[in-house]
């Protein structure tokens, strides 16, 4: 799926009218099958960007087109059908605590599924092998019939990501997929997302706090600062200076073995999440 932001501005729906917009006049195009990481300090507008792309938030000015269509001009039914082709994974996985993992994961299939077959799946899960395979990509297949509230934070996050693999969406918008994962799991999770997206030619936009993971696994990096586009470059052209300017005073917390600015190629044994600024 293709994404086109044209001078799009947006503010949080609960924000006061006088508050500065969370995202200001952003122009950006993402081609079908492209993989893109959005980085930037907290409050830079990464989540707002993903919400705009997911037709979850209406731009206050400018426009966001999804596959050339303006979602907000569509009638509600048509908009819901379009949303069925998008998958937005929030940072905190939205899983009901009393639900079993298998049901929570299969909920990704609801879009485009008839009400009758979704109800039948509540009675007896329709695609247990599919759910199992998706969970196995994140190494939590053993939790298939566990209840969500028995999982740790990291396990919940991986269940939330496994939903993406089951959805029929052709655009994945993933918000901070690694925030609760340890370095090994983070490496595994991002590999699963990137590889699956590539093999299905799904467009992948992920916001990341782990700059080294972003540089290593994503060909294109978008830097956001204070709601504005700071840079939009191929990963190998992102220099230490650009990152220092992007993160400002936060950059000291990002002290990590950033290799030579150009042609950054981390050895596979390197701790991946060491860069996470917490």
């Amino acid at each position, binding site marked *: 799926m293709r994404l086109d932001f044209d001078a799009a501005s947006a503010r949080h729906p609960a924000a006061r009218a006088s508050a500065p917009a969370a995202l200001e006049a952003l122009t950006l195009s993402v081609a079908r099958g492209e993989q893109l990481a959005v980085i930037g300090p907290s409050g830079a507008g990464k989540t707002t960007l993903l919400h705009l792309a997911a*037709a979850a938030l*209406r731009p206050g000015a400018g426009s966001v087109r999804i596959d050339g269509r303006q979602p907000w001009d569509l009638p*509600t039914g048509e908009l819901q059908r379009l*949303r069925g*082709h998008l998958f937005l994974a929030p940072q905190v996985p939205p899983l009901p605590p*009393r639900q079993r993992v298998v049901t929570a994961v299969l909920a990704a299939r609801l879009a485009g*599924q008839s009400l009758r077959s979704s109800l039948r799946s509540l009675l007896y899960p329709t695609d247990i092998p599919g759910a199992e395979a998706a969970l196995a990509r994140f190494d939590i297949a053993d939790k298939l019939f566990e209840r969500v509230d028995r999982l740790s934070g990291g396990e919940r996050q991986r269940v939330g990501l496994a939903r993406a693999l089951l959805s029929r*969406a052709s655009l994945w918008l993933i918000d901070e997929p690694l925030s609760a994962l340890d370095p090994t799991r983070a490496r595994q999770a991002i590999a699963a997302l990137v590889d699956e997206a590539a093999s299905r030619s799904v467009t992948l936009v992920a916001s990341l706090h782990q700059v080294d993971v972003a540089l290593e696994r994503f060909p294109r990096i978008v830097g956001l600062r204070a709601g504005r586009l700071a840079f939009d470059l191929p990963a190998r052209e992102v220099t230490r200076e650009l990152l220092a300017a992007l993160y400002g005073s936060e950059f000291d917390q990002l002290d990590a073995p950033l290799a030579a600015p150009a042609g950054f190629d981390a050895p596979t044994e390197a701790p991946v999440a060491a860069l996470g600024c917490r």
Partner: protein
Amino acid sequence: MANAAPATTLPQTRDPAWLGRVFWFGAALALLWPMAVATEFKPWLLFAPESVEATLRFGASFFPPALGSEFLALVARETWRTVAIATAGISLALLIAVPLALASTRVLSISALPGRMAAGPFVLRQALRWLLIALRSMPELVWALVFVRVVGLGPTAGVLAIALTYGGMLGKVYGEILESGEPQAAQALLRNGAGRLQAFCYAVLPANAAELVSYTVYRWECAIRSSVVLGFVGAGGLGQQLDNSTKMFAGGEVATMLLVFMLLVALADRTSAWFRRSLG
């Protein structure tokens, strides 16, 4: 800066919330006083010698409870009828309440996803809320008096009366329970293209099932008590027997039936606790 001259500023040792608390306490008293006057609230009358004597006489007539086998059989039959009235009434009330709650709750609104609900859905939800208010603002006793005229004396009037009033109450509280939970799970499904009923079954219901069931069981308990009052106006069940026995000053019979009520309420209490444990 505040810390620049610590020697000259006294540390604040008074609780700044104290004055506000005193004010609201006084305001509550000032509001309650006229209400006590309006309701002729004179609790000391309860302890006047003639009141105490009347109370004791009434209480003494309860003992011993009537335990004749014929009477017990009658009580068992009427108890069963009371439970049936309450259960049938609640079931019909669910038919009213569930669709109205689903249609009026904000959590399942697709148009409210980007922030504000659109005008059409907002007006529709408000209209359904008004319908729920209309249903429950008429006490079941009034509905029962109406239905006794329409369908005649008997349990049917009680069932219909409970169904309408309780439909309104259940619908309102169901809607509030659904809105009080965390909306993220439902929002995420709706944002990914799921339908409202799908989002309800996969996100809202699992999060709120225990509260919904426990409230429903509590309402069933209320319906049992309510059916007693309805029995007094001829809607059948244990209430009608209670009315007869009271009128004939048969204190023992009244005592037996009150004991049965206590058992029913205790049973509802246990059922609710069991549901909460198994769903929680």
